[in-house]
Every structure is written in structure tokens, then in C-alpha cells.
């Protein structure tokens, strides 16, 4: 192994395993909600089997050991169909397993060794299994797959099912006899034998059929594939042997289809009965999984390296710029070019479409993030013994990949908070005349250029007075309470250090957590609104921009340089005269606007460039705001508003104060994007 680079394999393993355990988690949570794990035993078995195989291959023995123990349980469940199973306990166990595998995979991803000790979980699983066995009296019965029942003979020992296609040498003669001897040989070791042609008799018809399309045998056999192959290869005059391992129900192998797939398709086509049976099973599977997964959005995906995506973005951005350079070329000015203009319009349309598509490729549906919340709700509602009906709306809403990473944490905290503080215990709810089961709704929707994520609960709502009291105690309020709106008061709960909960629970109450919401929302330029009605619930809405990669910007010029200011932070722009300016003893300039005093920053001084003008009358002031603080930026003039593609500064330059990135303008020149928040912080 030393000389092979295992990294790509490892990456693949991590990727696949993460998907597997996510799928597993969904299946488990979903089937728990419906009717216990019973309906999805086969799926869970398949996943655990795949997991066992792949982790053993990558020699992560702790994962494979654990997967093996789980497999044991589900094997038992599937074969013996015990009547009394503590599915609740099993679900808990399974979630523990998922957590363990998840944390191990996390370690592997971070290039640490997967060193977690599975023995305690493994032991619990084994205990559970022995409990099951005790509770199930018919353990001794060697009942196997249902398929075998309708066939006599040695069906009982048929563990693996195979399909073999055998062709004989052209001039071997007496094909029927050869075929018969093969089947006879198989009867010694296998059961449930079916063959095509069905009637092997000494007729020319039969001989011809075997000669042309070979002999196809379907059988069940306890021997592993290698031995079966060896056996069949002993056949005299054997020209070609195709052995296919086609077990859909064999224990210990799941649905894994190993084996050699032959080129002999004619042989396969000759088994109408078997084919049909297969199809039937597939259909069943499909409808079954369709029914099961009906509310989990399933899509076809390919995974693409993110760097390739970024490169594609770059190239397309460049294409748009060069398109502008061609169609708006100054050399074309004044020329009457009917055909050229038509062609140029067409080009513009196509490049625009291309840009839209590339942008949409970065968009990911929220479903994964939302589905994860199922688990949080389940765990919390069991621990706190509050029945909760959790509803997800609009999970197919798409947002930029970069943004999705910042949504998960805030949601977890908000949901925890809603269940712990919001939803009342069942008795209390009944007293208030509400349904005993609490209801939490998580909704996502598009609105303009933003995505709204709304979390609603029908709990007791926020206690306005208590918030004010606690906030005053913790000195979290700067302004007089009478001036604050309800929304402003409610958003105090998002401040670090705030908690109304008297005692600290496992889930909340330490006063950390909710501030994560604000922090993460700030990172993605989002905002949080809180509405609440005492007694009937709280609604928390998060407004998030669709994408970070594209931004509405105002391009301004200072001397020969151009800068871009995010439109979102611009409040207004204004012309003033020197007389409006107030100066403090240190010559810092300020201006009074509607009773508020804002400092003036001359961009040319800050960035040390030669300005077109330093007279305030000739330039323009732009009032920008971040976190409720405003400053005025002085520039030469406004150039225009446009959507820009945000690019990072080269790493070599390290972090530059006051600049958040750069963007390419239509003429190919670079414009620096001003980081308003850091300018304001700097000024403080």
C-alpha cells in the first residue's frame, strides 16, 4: 500500500460514507415516524453491508466491526421476523452508531486516524441482539428466503443464487448430453435449479438451441463463487463460461451484485420467466422506495471538484467581459452594421444564459440541511418529553453553496431554543386549550434576490417584560426601553450572554448559542427578524442573500481609480458644501444628518491615491451603514450601479484593511470592493 497514493480512495470513501450515513439517518427517522423500522430493514441492511465492506477495504476496522454488529441485528430481524422488538431502543442504538461513524469519518477527513473505540456500542448492540433472540422462540428453525419455499429439493441450503451461461465448443456434438451432465453435476451441490432450454432431450432442436445460445442455468448454492466456477469449469468441451452472481436475497451479501457479467446477452434474453421475476421485484422496490421517500427530495447528482466550478465561473465571467469588449468596441462607433448588431445581440443573449446556468450550478437545495433538523427535533423531544410535530416546507429552495454552510448552525440553535423555551409541556398546553402536540414549522422561500428561512413554533411566545428585565440586569440595553420596538426587544435574545432560562439544561440556557445565529447571519450578509405573540408562538425569520459570489455594487471613482461599494450598505448619497462640515480639534471631519453625526472619510486619503478633486463641493458624499452605524465616504463621483462578480484578492497580498475583494468591470479593469464594516470598525 505504501507506494500507492491512497488519498483519492480515502476522499471517495469519506464522500460515500457521509452520503450513506445521511441516507441511513433519514430512513431511520422517517420510518420511526411511520411505523417503526420494520419497513426499512432491507435498506438499512444494505447500507450497513456497504459500509462494512468499504470500511474494511480502507482498513478502518472500528467502523467495520460496528457495521458488522448492526448487520447481525438486521439479519436476525429480517430472517426471523420477531414480533416483539423494541424499535425505540433500536432507533436510539442506530443513531448512536450513525454518530460514531460520522465522527470517525470526520477524523479521517481531517487526516487524523480513525481511533474511536466502538466496543461499548458494539457491546450494547450484541446485548440487544441476544435479548431479541431470547424473545424469539423459533430461533432453531432454519427458515431462509421466501423464494426457496416454492421449490423442492435442497432449496433449504440455497444461500447464494447464481446464473451461469455455458457455451460448448462448436464441434463437440451431443450438446444435450453435455448440458445434462452439467446440470447433473450441479444437482450434487445446488438446489432450485432451473435451466434454459427447459427440456433437454435428444432432439436436433434442443441441440441447436444450446449450440447457438448456450445453456443457461439458474440455481441456488451454498458454495462461494470461486468454487462454483471451478466446478463448472471442469465441464468437457467448455468454450465459454459466464457466471453471474445474482442474489437479491442472499443473506450476508445484501444486494451487492458481484461476479462476472457476461457478454452473452442472448442467454439472458432467453430467460423470460426469470427476467419478469426480476422486473417485478424491481418495480416493487421502486414503488416501495417511492412511497417511503416520497417527501425526501431525490435528485440525480454528479460531484464536481469545486475548483473546476470556480474555474468555469471565472471563464464565463471573462467571456461576458470580452463579449462587451467586442460589441462595444470604440472602433465600431458610427458604423451602420445591421448584421453585426443582430449577431451581437444573439451572442449577448447566449452569454447571459450561460452565466445564469453557471450561477445556478452553484446552487444547492436546502433539503439536506433541513433534513438534519429532523434528528435534532427527535432527540430533543425525546429527552424533554415534549411531543412535537415537525413540518418542513420548501426544502427544495436553492441557495449558494457557500451560504448553506452558515445556515445549519443557526438553525440548530433556533430549533433547540424553540423546543426548550418555546413549546410548553403537554399538560400546560392542554390547560391553555392547545393541542397536546407542539408544532414547529421550518419554511424556506424565495423573495426577490433573497431567501427567507422561517422558523415558526406554537409555543408560549417570548415574554417581553422578562426579556427587558434580564437585559437590564445584564446591561444589554443601551437605549431607553420606551423607544424600542417589539422587534428590537425580541432581538435582544440573540445577543451574547442573554438567557431567560433560570437553570442550565443540556440543550440551552448558558447564554451562548443564540449569538451564533447573529454571527453566522452577519457572515452571509443576512438579517434576523423576530415576531412573537404571547401564548401563541414565535416566528423567527432569517433573510439571506441568494449568493455571495454576485453582489449589487455602486461603482465610484477617485482620481483614476475605481472602487465598488455594496449597494446593500448604501443609505444615500449627497452633495454638500464645506460649510456643512464640522471639524474637531484633531481636524477630523464630521457631518450632521437628521440629528445624527457621522464621520467623513476621504477615500483618497485612506487609500493614498491622487484624487480628481479634494473640494467637497465637487465630489459626492455617500452615507453607508453597517450594524446601525453610519459613516460618510467622500469620492469624486458615482459611475453607476451594476451587478459584480466578487473575487478574492490574491493570497500573496494578505489581508488589506478596508478591502473585501475585487471585481472585474465591463472594460476588463479591476475595481476594489470596499469593506464597509471594517471601515466603520476602524473608525471606532
Amino acid at each position: 500500500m505504501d507506494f500507492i497514493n491512497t488519498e483519492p480512495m480515502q476522499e471517495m470513501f469519506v464522500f460515500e460514507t457521509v452520503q450513506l450515513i445521511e441516507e441511513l439517518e433519514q430512513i431511520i427517522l422517517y420510518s420511526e415516524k411511520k411505523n417503526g423500522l420494520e419497513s426499512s430493514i432491507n435498506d438499512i441492511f444494505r447500507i450497513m453491508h456497504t459500509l462494512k465492506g468499504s470500511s474494511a477495504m480502507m482498513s478502518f476496522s472500528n467502523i467495520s466491526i460496528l457495521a458488522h454488529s448492526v448487520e447481525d441485528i438486521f439479519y436476525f430481524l429480517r430472517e426471523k421476523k420477531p414480533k416483539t422488538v423494541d424499535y425505540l431502543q433500536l432507533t436510539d442504538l442506530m443513531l448512536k452508531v450513525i454518530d460514531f461513524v460520522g465522527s470517525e469519518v470526520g477524523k479521517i477527513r481531517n487526516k487524523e486516524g480513525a481511533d474511536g473505540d466502538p466496543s461499548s456500542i458494539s457491546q450494547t448492540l450484541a446485548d440487544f441482539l441476544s435479548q431479541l433472540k431470547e424473545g424469539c422462540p423459533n430461533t432453531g428453525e432454519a427458515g431462509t428466503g421466501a423464494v426457496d419455499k416454492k421449490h423442492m429439493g435442497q432449496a433449504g441450503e440455497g444461500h447464494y443464487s447464481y446464473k451461469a451461461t455455458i457455451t460448448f465448443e462448436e464441434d463437440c456434438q451431443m450438446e444435450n448430453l453435455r448440458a445434462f451432465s452439467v446440470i447433473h453435476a450441479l444437482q450434487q451441490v445446488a438446489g432450485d435449479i432451473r435451466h434454459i432450454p427447459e427440456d433437454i432431450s435428444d432432439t436436433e432442436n434442443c441441440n441447436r438451441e444450446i449450440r447457438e445460445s448456450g445453456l443457461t442455468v439458474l440455481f441456488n448454492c451454498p458454495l462461494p463463487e470461486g468454487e462454483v466456477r471451478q466446478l463448472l469449469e471442469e465441464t468437457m468441451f467448455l468454450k465459454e463460461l459466464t457466471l453471474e452472481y445474482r442474489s437479491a436475497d442472499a443473506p450476508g451479501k445484501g444486494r451487492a451484485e458481484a461476479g462476472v457479467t457476461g457478454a452473452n446477452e442472448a442467454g439472458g434474453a432467453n430467460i423470460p420467466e426469470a427476467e419478469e421475476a426480476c422486473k417485478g421485484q424491481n418495480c416493487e422496490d421502486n414503488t416501495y422506495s417511492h412511497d417511503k421517500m416520497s417527501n425526501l427530495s431525490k435528485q440525480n447528482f454528479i460531484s464536481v471538484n469545486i475548483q473546476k466550478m470556480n474555474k468555469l465561473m471565472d471563464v464565463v465571467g471573462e467571456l461576458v467581459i470580452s463579449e462587451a469588449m467586442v460589441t462595444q468596441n470604440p472602433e465600431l462607433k458610427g458604423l451602420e452594421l445591421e448584421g453585426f448588431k443582430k449577431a451581437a445581440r444573439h451572442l449577448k443573449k447566449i452569454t447571459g444564459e450561460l452565466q445564469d446556468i453557471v450561477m445556478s450550478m452553484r446552487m444547492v437545495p436546502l433539503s439536506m440541511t433541513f433534513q438534519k433538523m429532523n434528528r435534532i427535533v427527535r432527540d430533543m423531544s425525546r429527552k424533554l418529553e415534549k411531543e412535537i410535530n415537525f413540518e418542513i416546507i420548501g426544502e427544495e429552495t436553492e441557495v449558494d453553496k457557500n451560504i448553506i454552510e452558515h445556515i445549519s448552525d443557526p438553525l440548530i440553535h433556533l430549533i433547540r431554543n424553540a423546543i426548550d423555551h418555546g413549546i410548553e409541556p403537554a399538560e400546560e398546553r392542554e390547560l391553555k386549550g392547545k393541542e397536546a402536540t407542539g408544532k414547529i414549522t421550518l419554511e424556506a422561500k424565495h423573495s426577490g434576490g433573497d431567501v427567507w428561512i422561517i422558523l415558526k413554533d406554537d409555543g408560549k411566545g417570548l415574554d417581553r417584560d422578562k426579556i427587558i428585565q434580564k437585559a437590564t440586569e445584564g446591561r444589554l440595553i443601551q437605549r431607553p426601553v420606551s423607544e424600542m420596538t417589539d422587534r428590537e426587544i425580541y432581538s435582544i435574545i440573540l445577543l451574547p450572554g442573554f438567557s431567560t432560562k433560570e437553570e442550565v439544561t443540556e440543550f440551552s440556557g448558558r447564554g451562548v448559542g443564540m449569538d451564533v445565529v447573529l454571527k453566522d447571519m452577519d457572515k452571509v450578509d443576512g438579517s434576523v427578524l423576530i415576531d412573537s405573540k404571547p401564548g401563541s408562538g414565535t416566528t423567527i425569520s432569517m433573510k439571506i442573500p441568494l449568493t455571495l459570489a454576485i453582489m449589487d455594487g455602486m461603482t465610484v471613482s477617485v482620481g483614476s481609480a475605481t472602487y465598488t461599494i455594496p449597494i446593500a450598505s448604501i443609505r444615500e448619497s449627497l452633495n454638500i458644501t464645506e460649510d456643512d462640515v464640522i471639524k474637531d480639534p484633531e481636524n477630523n471631519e464630521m457631518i450632521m444628518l437628521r440629528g445624527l453625526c457621522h464621520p467623513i472619510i476621504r477615500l483618497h486619503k485612506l487609500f493614498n491615491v491622487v484624487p480628481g478633486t479634494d473640494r467637497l463641493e465637487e465630489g459626492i458624499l455617500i452615507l453607508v451603514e453597517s450594524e446601525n452605524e453610519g459613516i460618510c465616504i467622500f469620492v469624486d463621483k458615482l459611475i453607476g450601479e451594476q451587478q459584480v462578480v466578487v473575487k478574492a484578492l490574491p493570497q500573496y497580498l494578505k489581508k488589506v484593511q478596508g478591502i473585501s475583494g475585487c471585481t472585474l468591470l465591463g472594460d476588463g479593469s479591476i475595481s476594489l470592493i470596499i469593506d464597509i464594516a471594517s471601515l466603520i470598525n476602524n473608525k471606532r
Partner: protein
Amino acid sequence: MASVLEDNFEIQNEDTQKGRFLTFTLGGEDYGIEIKYVTEIIGIQPITQVPELPDYLKGIINLRGKIIPVMDVRLRFRKEPLKYTDRTCIIVIDINDTSIGMIVDTVSEVVSIDDENIMLPPDAKTGFNNKYVKGIGKMGSEVKLLLDCGKIFSTDEEEMLSSLAQA
């Protein structure tokens, strides 16, 4: 097996580039840099100034959609700045996956210099500032100063401080 083949391939690749230098002039001197670092040579481009940088870092340019920083090698070597002309070139080099443009007076040619014709620079004690020069290549009667690309782009803390203090 595959890795062995790859190694071979890389050795071959390196062989064709080994001992070959791109030479350029800076005032009166000829310099050379190893060709394996060079990705392309372009004419002077409009440069966007970025605040808070040392004076030798002129800013950033748009190289076909890729934003790369450019450095004036004259200023880096504390020479007098020269006004950029049509002859001014930007040599784009790639070190450790970082692209950087070097502004030089003119680019001359690609030359081969054998190892035996490369000498170590004189000792620093003799007053020769050899910080960026890792060797001196002889070509007949001419001499090329061979640059250590890694050193040119390492941001010297001290230098940053002094240039900030001057500003």
C-alpha cells in the same frame, strides 16, 4: 508502477528545463530566472493600486480573469524607478501555486547555462548584496545574475516594517 512511470516522466520534463534561464535586463545588468517558474510573458497592463502595500508591489492586474499581484523588480532591488514603456514586460511566474507578475525593463532571451558555468555569488562580507542572487552564470564574455525566485517573493518582515515607516 504508475508512480514509477510518473517519476520518470517528471525527470524527463525537468531535464528539458534544467539549466535553461529566461534572461531580462534591469538597467545595465542582465538577470536570469529558471525557466521552470515562468508561465508567460506579457506586455505592461493597466495596474490597479491596492492600499497598504510596500512600494515595490505595484498592485494587481487582470490576467484573463485571474487576478494576480505584480511587483516592480527595480523597486524590489532598490533601484531608481523607470517609467513604463512599450518595452516594459511582465514576466508571470508560478511558485508554489502562487502566480506573480514581475515588471522588468525588457526580456532578452532563453539561454542554456551549464552547471559548471554557474558560480556562487561573492561572499556577503565583501559587500556584495547577494540576498536575491543565488548564482552567477557565465556566457562567453557576458555575465548573468541568476535570481532566487523564492527569496524575491518572500515577504521580509523587516522590510515591510521599514517601508511602512517611510510611508
